[in-house]
């Protein structure tokens, strides 16, 4: 089929000469922005510059979104007005600050960028048929969020904290200030435009790449991390070997006493915490998991109660459980550690097991019910046998996790080998630290390989 055969496709409309269109737009941009330049910062020339930037912006969006000549001037003026007003809104709170740029100030300053972003979103929506209207809000939020993050990260560069408003008025820090604003502006423009472009193109890759890149840049800047530093500091690894090697497995409990193998007791304590925590938790999780599955619990109240209990336990991380129990039943003893590990195990087993029960074959359940079995008999003889292999595998996996997690509990005073690790670290006894780490490493690897071997045989 050729184009000529198609009755719908008629002649192409004649396009107006491109150069004329662009010249009209440029002149319009400059003329439009001069008054707003005056409104913003005291110079018409600067206003013209803003106009040209806004025009470039429109061009960029236009390339992606094929603007019609009719909408060109309206969009342009909207962009210029929004840009100037937004910039003004951005400058007002920043200029009025006393010392540090706090997050409240950043929020207020980013309102200006929000306005600008909303207009950019509106332009994209107008020019690109089929764009979701929510793009307007999303693009606005993208500009505002980017400006907020850039301000926050920029504060931590350091120099801005010492600048007071008076110093700026005296003109001492004019240059630094402007560099900072250009930096914030570039980041906000980068992220915001990426979002706008990706909406115009209907492709999310542009935005995710830009956001990732900008966020990485901010992160590098904020915590003083760089690839070069990583390379230059890699020589310090030799220092690591020097200090950590050879490991020192035996040391005296206190100065002057004969050497004793003090590693043994806390190590056993950790194992005890893991064993008791995993076993108790895994057993306690069974009724909870069966109540939290639609398959075995027709009663809605019981189901929701069990489900929300499980979610609550899971939301709180293991260390926080440790802190809570240590505060409750006393620091330094392994008991709170075991309690925390019980919660940790219940949380994981509850989730894994209830999801497995959800997925069991309903056939045997129906068969059991049709022979007149009671609910409990049904669960016991038709549902439970189906999940036993999975249950055992999960239990072993949870024991594995418990060994690893209970190492950490010592740091918050909940007993075990972590306490010793923390203590030796505070004394800068790195060779003893290394010994503890090696013991942990070997134990974890051993338990993991046994557990994997058993699991492979069961499932």
């Amino acid at each position, binding site marked *: 089929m050729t184009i000529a055969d198609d009755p719908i496709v008629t002649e192409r409309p004649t396009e107006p000469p491109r150069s004329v269109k662009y010249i009209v737009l440029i002149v319009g941009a400059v003329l439009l922005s001069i008054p707003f330049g005056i409104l913003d910062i005291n110079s018409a020339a600067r206003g013209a510059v803003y106009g040209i930037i806004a025009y470039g912006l429109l061009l960029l969006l236009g390339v992606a979104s094929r603007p019609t000549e009719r909408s060109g001037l309206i969009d342009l003026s909207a962009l210029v007005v929004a840009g100037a007003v937004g910039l003004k809104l951005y400058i007002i709170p920043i200029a009025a600050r006393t010392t540090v740029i706090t997050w409240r100030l950043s929020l207020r300053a980013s309102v200006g960028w929000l306005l600008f972003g909303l207009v950019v979103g509106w332009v994209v929506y107008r020019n690109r048929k089929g764009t979701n*209207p929510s793009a307007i809000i999303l693009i606005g939020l993208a500009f505002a969020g980017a400006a907020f993050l850039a301000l926050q990260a920029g504060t931590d560069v350091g120099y801005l904290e010492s600048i007071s408003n008076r110093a700026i008025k005296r003109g001492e820090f004019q240059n630094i200030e402007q560099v900072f604003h250009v930096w914030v502006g570039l980041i906000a423009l980068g992220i915001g435009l990426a979002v706008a472009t990706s909406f115009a193109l209907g492709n999310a890759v542009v935005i995710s790449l830009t956001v990732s890149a900008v966020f990485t840049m901010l992160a590098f800047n904020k915590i003083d991390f760089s690839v070069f530093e990583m390379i230059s500091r890699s020589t310090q690894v030799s220092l690591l070997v020097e200090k950590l090697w050879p490991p020192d497995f035996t040391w005296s409990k206190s100065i002057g006493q004969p050497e004793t193998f003090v590693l043994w007791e806390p190590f056993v304590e950790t194992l005890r915490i893991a064993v008791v925590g995993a076993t108790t938790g895994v057993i306690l999780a069974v009724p909870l998991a069966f109540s939290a599955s639609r398959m075995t619990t027709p009663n809605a109240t019981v189901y929701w109660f069990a489900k929300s209990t499980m979610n609550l336990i899971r939301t709180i991380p293991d260390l926080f459980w440790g802190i809570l129990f240590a505060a409750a039943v006393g620091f330094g003893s*392994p*008991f709170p550690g075991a309690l925390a590990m019980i919660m940790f195990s219940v949380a994981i087993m509850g989730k894994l097991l209830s999801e497995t029960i959800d997925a069991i074959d309903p056939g045997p359940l129906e068969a059991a019910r049709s022979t007149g079995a009671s609910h409990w008999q049904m669960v016991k003889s038709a549902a439970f046998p189906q999940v036993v292999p999975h249950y055992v595998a999960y239990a072993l996996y949870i024991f594995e996790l418990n060994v690893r997690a209970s190492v950490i509990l010592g740091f918050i005073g909940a007993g075990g080998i972590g306490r010793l*690790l923390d203590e030796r*670290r505070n004394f800068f006894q790195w060779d003893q630290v290394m010994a503890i780490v090696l013991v942990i490493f070997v134990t974890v*690897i051993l338990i993991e390989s046994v557990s994997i071997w058993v699991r492979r045989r069961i499932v």
Partner: protein
Amino acid sequence: MTVPDLAPDAVGDTERPVEPEWPKRLRWILILVIGLPYIWGLLGLELSWGALGRAPGQIWGLMGGLLPPDWSDIAESFNKLLESIYVAWIASIIGAFFSFPLGFMAATNMAPNWMTGPVRALLSGIRAFPELVLAIVLIPAFGLGPFTGVLAIGIHSIGTLGKLTSEVIEGVDPGPIEAIKATGGTRFQAMRFGVVPQAMPNILAYWLYRFEINIRASAVLGMIGAGGIGAEIVGRLRFRDDWPKAGAALIITIVVVLIIDAISAGIRRRIIAGHPGTGPVSRTLGTIVGDITPPVIEIQEA
């Protein structure tokens, strides 16, 4: 024609079959294997039921100390929280960057056996160290600070992400790879055009998921002084007067972590499941703005 005698013993055999012995024995062995260590564990735990009875009251007291939160220093806490997030982000990038090739090297359908073995051992060796322990080992060389935190979390992420990546790669459909090889594509081309497009959505989702986990890990690492919100909270908890400020820091941490989790979960769902269609926001806006014609997908004829 005779009826085949299918069950010769069925008529006369009224006895119950003898129950096999070994499940019973197995049960006893299991009870011994689990029960004895359990009792051994319980004996050494310094259990005190009295303390457990007092526990709810103590926890209530702890909560009472944290609440009501004191919001006066919230800006500083927020900056520390951002620092934790930045640490987690860079660590996730390090993890993603190095785990990607390692994942290919550990996948049995991509690499020869002599390579998968050592790489897998390396990955599980890395995973054996919790982040906190890794950070402590790194302190003598790199000192306290975000740098150590980034390295510790990053290295741990390489271990976990490498394993997950290799599992995803092992699960891809071998058809496209064979097709590329059949048309004369090289091994690299088979990976680039046969494996990556299939595996990438899941791998990306794992990267995001790891970022969520790393935020928590970097908050925890603050406890040993590796920067971030953890140090802030622990420092505040030292003095009873500062507890309300610690409460405020805890609250913003939980809220921000939950928000990031929700966003990340949304992105992950979007990556795995595809475009969700018109949402409630766009519908509401559409009534204000005007037409909301859904995007028309033009299918071009070949």
